[in-house]
């Protein structure tokens, strides 16, 4: 039930529509229920003897009433259907907005495929709650409410007898309902797995082909597929029992009518026409009851999906402040780490320990060190991709904890180790992080990133589509595009996390030199394995097992004859 609470606000904007739908549903049910009465009266008249004109009038009345009822039904359905599509839309919009505000760790915990299932399949299942379930429920409720007086008018005792089975039907629905919900939640989870598996498979197509893992992949997929079938079957067994029981109980009504109602007719307590009428009313009840069965199924599946959606919505977004930071002044770029120790949740040991480092704005600081010593973690802390402990990382003297993420990020140009471009033109990809960029800006950024020559060879220059639907760029080209993407923002802080690993040392050197010349006064943090890339930095920090083991300029460090000097010697020896 608490899950449903989350859905109620979505109905609010469509109150009017829902009200019209309720009124129309009531009116259409009322009007169509007049038909059995008309037929009953016609039969009684026939029994007694009837003339042509009267018969024609009965016929015309039936048709007239049906047209009115049909129109009302149309109105009712259109209101509910449109409402359900609006609600689906609103819910999906909200969910996406929510997901976009989720922290780094969230995307580790939920795979893309799983999130996609929640945003599509699950949202659709919830749409049914606001669509078909509403239609079915309103109809069932009104048919019951309105048939009741008609039936009571004929014979109160027969009517009461009929409704004896009602509590039983409700009990069945409730009893099975809970289990159905649990099982459909499992099924949706497997659906998420299926979609995640397909996604991984497509992303890893080269790897899978190269290692001839196709059959193993098929086997693994088949396994998920089979468990999907097994789970669905167990759900449908439940449905099956539930539906058969409900239909059986409804049928009991007919038995009672024939047995007890027939007796009443024989005794003359009711007329044959009334007996027929009663039968017809019951027939009218059958469809809403079957529909109610469907509604219960849909409702339960929808609730299961809603639970999955709420599970995501209940993850508190870490970014609660508005993203519009245009009125705030840009940061200067001073960065300070104060006694910073950081441990990932669940990890045994900290990745970073006791880092103390102050970086004046406009300086270039480089980080070198062995693989996996925490350099990337250190870089991720600055744009708050990972939250540092309080009062350990400062930007412009303000503890990161007290600054808005959006504000800090607005001044950062970040180039991660692994590049992701979007399926869009090259120009759009470069201009990704700025609100307005004319072609000159894009060309300028591309020039700094050393992309100009490559672009000249692309079929449509900067308008060439890249990514999934376009040209496949080489690793080095992707990395340079990512550099251009960061540079075009003219950031106060530029972070290059081993960002040119797929580019040769010479090109890297060239790009870094241009960067220094073009963007003056920016703070640069460079992680690299190449001495040539870090040599000119104002400060070089050697990171060893999460600590700064050496620091100084290139010359100072060489004179220290420590790790850095050894590294340099090695590289020189190898490349010379």
């Amino acid at each position, binding site marked *: 039930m608490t899950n449903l609470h989350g859905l109620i606000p979505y109905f609010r904007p469509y109150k009017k529509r829902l009200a019209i739908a309720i009124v129309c549903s009531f009116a259409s049910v009322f009007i169509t229920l007049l038909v059995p009465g008309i037929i009953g009266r016609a039969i009684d008249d026939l029994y007694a003897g009837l003339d042509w004109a009267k*018969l024609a009038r009965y016929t015309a009345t039936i048709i007239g009433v049906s047209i009115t009822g049909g129109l009302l039904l*149309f109105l009712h359905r259109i209101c509910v259907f449109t409402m359900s599509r609006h609600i689906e839309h609103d819910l999906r919009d909200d969910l996406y907005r929510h997901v976009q505000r989720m922290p780094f760790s969230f995307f580790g915990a939920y795979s893309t495929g799983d999130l996609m299932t929640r945003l599509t399949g699950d949202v659709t299942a919830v749409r049914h709650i606001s669509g078909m379930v509403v239609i079915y429920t309103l109809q069932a409720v009104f048919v019951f409410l309105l048939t009741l007086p008609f039936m009571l008018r004929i014979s109160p005792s027969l009517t009461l007898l009929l409704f004896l089975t009602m509590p039983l039907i409700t009990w069945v629905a409730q009893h099975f309902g809970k289990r159905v919900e649990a099982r459909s939640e499992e099924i949706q989870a497997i659906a998420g797995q299926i979609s995640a598996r397909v996604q991984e498979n497509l992303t890893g197509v080269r790897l899978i082909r190269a290692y001839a893992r196709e059959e193993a992949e098929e086997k693994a997929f088949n396994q998920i597929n089979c468990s999907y079938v097994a789970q669905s079957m167990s759900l449908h067994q439940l449905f099956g029992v539930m539906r058969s029981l409900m239909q059986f109980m409804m049928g009991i009504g007919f038995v009672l009518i024939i047995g007890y109602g027939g007796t009443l007719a024989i005794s003359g307590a009711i007329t044959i026409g009334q007996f027929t009428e009663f039968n017809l009313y019951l027939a009218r009840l059958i469809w809403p009851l079957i529909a109610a069965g469907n509604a219960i199924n849909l409702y339960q599946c929808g609730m299961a999906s809603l639970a999955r959606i709420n599970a995501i919505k209940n993850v508190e977004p870490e970014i609660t402040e508005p993203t519009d930071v245009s009125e705030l002044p840009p940061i200067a770029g001073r960065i300070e780490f104060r006694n910073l120790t950081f441990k990932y949740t669940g990890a045994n040991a900290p990745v970073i320990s006791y880092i103390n480092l102050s970086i004046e704005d406009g300086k270039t600081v480089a980080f070198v060190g062995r693989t996996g010593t925490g350099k990337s973690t250190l870089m991720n802390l600055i744009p708050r991709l990972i939250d540092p402990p309080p009062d350990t990382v400062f930007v412009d003297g303000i503890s990161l904890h007290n600054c808005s993420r959006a504000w800090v990020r607005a001044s950062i140009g970040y180039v991660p180790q692994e590049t992701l471009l979007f399926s869009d033109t090259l120009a759009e990809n470069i201009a990704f992080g700025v609100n307005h960029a004319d072609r000159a800006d894009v060309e300028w950024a591309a020039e700094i990133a050393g992309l100009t020559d490559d672009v000249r060879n692309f079929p449509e220059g900067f308008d060439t589509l890249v990514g999934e639907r376009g040209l496949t760029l080489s690793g080095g080209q992707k990395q340079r595009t990512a550099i251009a993407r960061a540079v075009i923002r003219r950031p106060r802080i530029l972070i290059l996390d081993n960002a040119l690993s797929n580019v040769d040392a010479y090109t890297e050197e060239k790009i870094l030199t241009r960067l220094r010349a073009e963007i003056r006064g920016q703070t640069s943090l460079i992680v690299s394995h190449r001495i040539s890339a870090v040599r000119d930095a104002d400060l070089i920090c050697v990171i060893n097992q999460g600590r700064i083991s050496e620091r100084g300029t290139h010359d100072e460090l060489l004179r220290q004859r420590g790790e850095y000097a050894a590294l340099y010697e090695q590289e020189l020896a190898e490349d010379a």
Partner: protein
Amino acid sequence: MHSANHLSNARQLLRRLKPYRWMLLQALVFLIVLDGLRITQPKFTQYAIDWYIIPRDLTGLRWLAAIYLGVLIVSALCQFFLNLLLKSAALRALADIRNELFQKLQRQDVAYIDSTPTGRVMTCLTSDVEALEELFTSGLTDILGGAIRIASVIAIMLWMDVRLTLVALITVPTFLVATTFFMRQTRHGYDVLRGRLGQINIFLQEHLSGALIIQIFNRETKSIARFSEINNQSRAASMKPIYHLALFFPLVDLIGAVGVALIMWYGGWRVMSSGGKLLSLGALVAFVQYSGQLFQPLREIADRYTGLQGAVVSAQRIFTMLSLPAEIQSPSQPRKTGRAQGQIEFEHVWFAYNDEDWVLKDVSFKVEAGQSVAVVGRTGAGKTTITNLLLRFYDVQRGRILLDGVDVREWDLKSLRENFAVVLQDLLLFPDTVESNIRLGREEISAERVEWAAREVCADHFIRLLPNGYHTTVQERGGGLSAGQKQLITLARALVSEPSLLILDEATNSVDTETERVVQRAVERVMHGRTTFQVAHHLSTVRKTSLIIVLEHGEVYEQGNHQKLLAERGLYWQLYQLQSSTLRVSVALPKLS
């Protein structure tokens, strides 16, 4: 053309149901029994009136009620088994289709997967297959069951009174006309709608994968706005079919009501004019009820109309994907299978990803078995393309590539690829344990061997520090592992199986120099006497190889060993000069003690 398509789609669907025909046949039996019982219900009313109520026979009436109770129990059981059998057949057939699609993808050209948005393929395997479920289950019960019910109701009505039946059926053509009209009106709408849904998936796939980039660049608002736009389009596309759908159901109802009115009018006249001889009063009541039953299945179909229409569109998309031609296939009679010696030859190879944008132009070189080769050149010079061609991810347009003297196109595809171990540029790990990521499904590789490979590439140390060591599950985006660490795992994966040929595509560029050196030595050790193909920037790695191929704008600019190329003073010499100069311009190095 449309109807031909539908016919072939229907044939395709039926073919997938064939393995479950016995299940379906049993279901059909239950269906017939169920419908048979269902149509007796108005008869019970009629007999109750004509036989017992009018003659005032109370005992007979009670018997009738008892019999009816029996009928109900049998109906409930039939309903249960019918649903179970149908669902079971449908779900299995759908699982088969899903498997079939997945298998198709495993054999589909890499070119197709490269050029088709992941989200679109995912839509096909998930929502499109799910849409078929509706067709297979409700479709079968409603359409098949409905047809049986309608036929039997008509039969009974004919048996009772031919003329009245004909009057009752006057409305049927109207119904058929209405249905075809709506079918035609909505099909296009559903086509558009499913296309929009595909767009949502494509967008989500990309923007959820890239969520972090979006956040770092403060693009959340923009991304949300763009999603909203696509979401809006999808909603707009859903609105048009909704109007038709909302109209269809009441219309079916109305046509039904007109049918009842006609029966009352003509039937009533017949009762009146004959004094109940031609048509009894009870029979008229039964007729009214039957006409209700005639329209009940139509109502049900009308109610599930959206699902059914959507399913038709989905079926079209699924079978289109299944019938896509795959160009790169294993030859039916491969000239060569099994383990290769490792001799590679490129003979005047020309290749372009599209049309005539040549990425490789007349590339020729020869690598002897056991030799180590390096491909150098600027980024975008076509180095990775050589890897793509060697593994037959793509086929050459002109010329040929020989492995052990046999064209790779004549090799058994699986054997060809099994001869290679590859470290690709993308650092891809599957969300599975570290051990499984190294083993990658090759069950014959022992845990000891996995650890050995990890030790060789300096990965053992950090793997042991992970919460569960080798059994730690890697998250989708490799959370918790640095790029360098991921690279070491992919290296261990390549070395673990002692391949005949090793391809390293910039395989050590995310690790530090020291680790790189250790890894290089490990590669030399493990690959001793086997062919190694490296795409590299570090001249330290390149220098030691026996053959260096310098690519420039897709052409082999020069080739030879380090000494030879330096002596030639060509492009390699230039690159070499540039790269060493980037280091050399520095202070004199004090001697290390």
